[in-house]
């Protein structure tokens, strides 16, 4: 009697055939391996030929290649540097200078974009007509204007209109604002200042413990502890107390007008201000939309339930709505932060010395080594965005819905 083979039987038969006497090229597993290998080799050859062809062409032109330029003196100055730098330092150091400046503007941008985004995103649901309209207007205006135009607006229209050095706007001879930047005093620690630094550290830890304890305490006894005000007290009171006890071991360096410029203190250059403003206001508008979307994704029943428990309006928002909305907001935040880091390359338009500007701009031009400089810069932006993605994914899993 004829019986049809089941699929399993056919597969089993072919497996046996493959391992014993059947032709190797008929074995699906070996075939799969073969195609993968061929594909891999093809890809490798593709990249190899691109690279060797490029190097060959560069050599034919007589152009210099390789990374030896990194140890040569750069010979030009940079407007702003977080580490000491002068014209005798190397291209490698300029790379670090540019990298740090990029990180700085990105961190500032991300911080303020998040603040703006959450304020205006939540304001969208305000019962106050004016606040609601302001939030909507903000989003609609800044989301719809090209970022480069906004950078130019802040730099050439707003900050360039500030008064000159000698007519600086000042606050108590300590803070100055003029067309060349914002100047403020710097604290320089002397012996014994470590006690104060340590107390700041302790205060921060103390606040964390306080929060933890307050939560436990509330779960146990139902009593609420004024965490916010106590934290403020600890954060400012503790260092201040130790500063007084140690007799204020700091000297204050005020900015003073010397010749053409203010020297001393800390200077925030207008390029940094314009770029941070543009990036945070622009990205903030997108984050505001993400926040709005997140809040709207929480069913209205949650709000009603919270109200019927007798929670005040702001507690409804902070305890019930926002924590649930975070699940929707965080993945969106991730891509907004990544965009912000990439958009920071618009620095070149106004001369803020970020990585793209000092390295792909000036260093490339002075050395002529386009491929090397662009490669190094690409890797940095790639790694920065991978780090953001990693951190945000960690954060995301902490706010994700806990399933039991």
């Amino acid at each position, binding site marked *: 009697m004829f019986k049809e083979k089941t699929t399993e039987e056919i597969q089993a038969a072919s497996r046996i055939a493959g391992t014993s006497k059947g032709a190797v090229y008929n074995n699906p597993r070996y075939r799969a391996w073969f195609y993968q290998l061929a594909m891999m080799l093809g890809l490798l050859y593709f990249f190899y030929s691109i690279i060797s062809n490029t190097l060959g062409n560069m050599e*034919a*032109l007589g*152009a210099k290649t390789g990374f030896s330029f990194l140890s040569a003196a750069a010979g*030009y100055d940079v407007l702003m540097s977080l580490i000491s730098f002068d014209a005798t330092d190397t291209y490698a150091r300029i790379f670090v200078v540019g990298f740090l400046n990029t990180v700085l503007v990105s961190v500032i941008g991300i911080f303020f974009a998040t603040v703006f985004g959450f304020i205006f995103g939540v304001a969208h649901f305000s019962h106050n007509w004016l606040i609601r309209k302001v939030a909507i207007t903000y989003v609609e205006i800044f989301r719809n204007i090209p970022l480069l135009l906004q950078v130019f607006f802040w730099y*050439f229209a707003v900050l360039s209109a500030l008064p000159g050095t000698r007519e600086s706007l000042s606050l108590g001879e300590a803070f100055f604002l003029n067309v*060349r930047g914002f100047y403020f005093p710097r604290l320089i620690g002397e012996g014994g200042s470590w006690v104060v630094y340590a107390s700041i550290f302790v205060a921060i830890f103390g606040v964390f413990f306080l929060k933890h304890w307050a939560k436990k305490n509330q779960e146990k006894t139902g009593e609420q502890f004024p965490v916010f005000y106590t934290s403020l007290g600890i954060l400012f009171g503790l260092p201040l107390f130790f500063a007084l006890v140690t007799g204020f071991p700091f000297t204050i360096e005020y900015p003073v007008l*010397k010749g053409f410029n203010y*020297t001393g203190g800390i200077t925030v250059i207008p390029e940094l201000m314009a770029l941070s403003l543009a990036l945070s206001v622009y990205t903030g508008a997108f984050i505001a939309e993400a926040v709005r979307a997140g809040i709207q994704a929480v069913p209205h029943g949650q709000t009603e339930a919270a109200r019927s428990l007798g929670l005040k309006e702001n507690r409804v928002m902070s305890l019930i709505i926002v924590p649930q909305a975070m699940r929707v907001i965080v993945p969106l935040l991730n891509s907004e932060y990544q965009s912000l880091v990439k958009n920071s390359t618009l620095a*070149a338009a106004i001369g803020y010395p970020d990585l793209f500007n000092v390295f792909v701009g000036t260093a490339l031009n002075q050395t002529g080594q386009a491929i090397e400089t662009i490669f190094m810069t690409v890797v940095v932006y790639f790694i920065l965005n991978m780090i953001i993605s990693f951190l945000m994914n960690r954060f995301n899993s902490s706010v994700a819905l806990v399933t039991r």
Partner: protein
Amino acid sequence: MKKISSLVVGGLALVALGAQAGTLEDVKKRGVLSCGVSTGLAGFSQKDEKGNWSGLDVDVCRGVAAAVLGDASKVQYKPLTAKERFEALRSGEIDVLSRNTTWTHTRDTSLGLNFAGTIYYDGAGFMVRKAIGVKSATELDNANACIQAGTSTELAIADYFRENNMSYKAVTFDTSDQTRIGFESGRCDFLVSDQSQLYALRIGLNNPDGAVVLPEVISKEPLGPVVRQGDDEWFNIVKWVVNASIEGEFQGVTSANVDKLKKDGNPAQLRFLGTEGKLGENLGLSADWAYQVIKQVGNYAESFERNVGQDSPLKISRGLNAQWNKGGILYSPAMR
């Protein structure tokens, strides 16, 4: 952005095409010369309201087009920033770079490029506002400088301040127009650039009389056209077009008398203008190549006076850029 696209194009072209020999054939086949110029610099390369380019650098482009194609107007101008210029040339996007570019050792030897001569002997200098009362660059300690990014000036000023134990803040911008805006807004105390550019930028100020150019010249900045390395035929053509313009002035050949001299000039003029000899053939050009250059563009003196000299708003005097027998250092190798 233009810069990025030219970098990408540059990268791709490096991969795909590599060093092109035979630029001459390419240009002849295309029927138009692709010439890299500045984004706008009075006297050197600037566009008027009708879209016509003019200037000392532009005249090099026009001269090469006249010599190679017989028509000085067959030029396609590519405005480039200082940062993108070399990549544009290396990638083959342009045939000649004529963009007030300083001939330096590093650029000549490590970029895969060749400088085809000097059309303007320049030097970096300073422009300050009259109101700050500075008479010499040595009084500029702790001042802010507006500089164009990616220029040799960026290096020259770092050297100068180091040498004089002074400090400064370098505020760098992408285009020379932006350096002017920065200077006017008070972001910097002085603007540093090649002297010729300073005069050009000064007339673009809202109040040109409010600014002065300081006497110091802090560097050597010989400006000239650049071509790709490895194409000697093309290198020779550009080099000798520059020389033809200088030689034309030396021999007294102008666009006005060139037709007459082509017929009854002295032996040197007849050889120069192609009536006798084989100068054109050796370059791979027609016999009247130099005639076309002088006829359509003019000799060096005409070009200089028209663009940056007494007939222009810049009113720069010849100075170093006069013939060697008239107190300058212009000297064309022998035209024979």
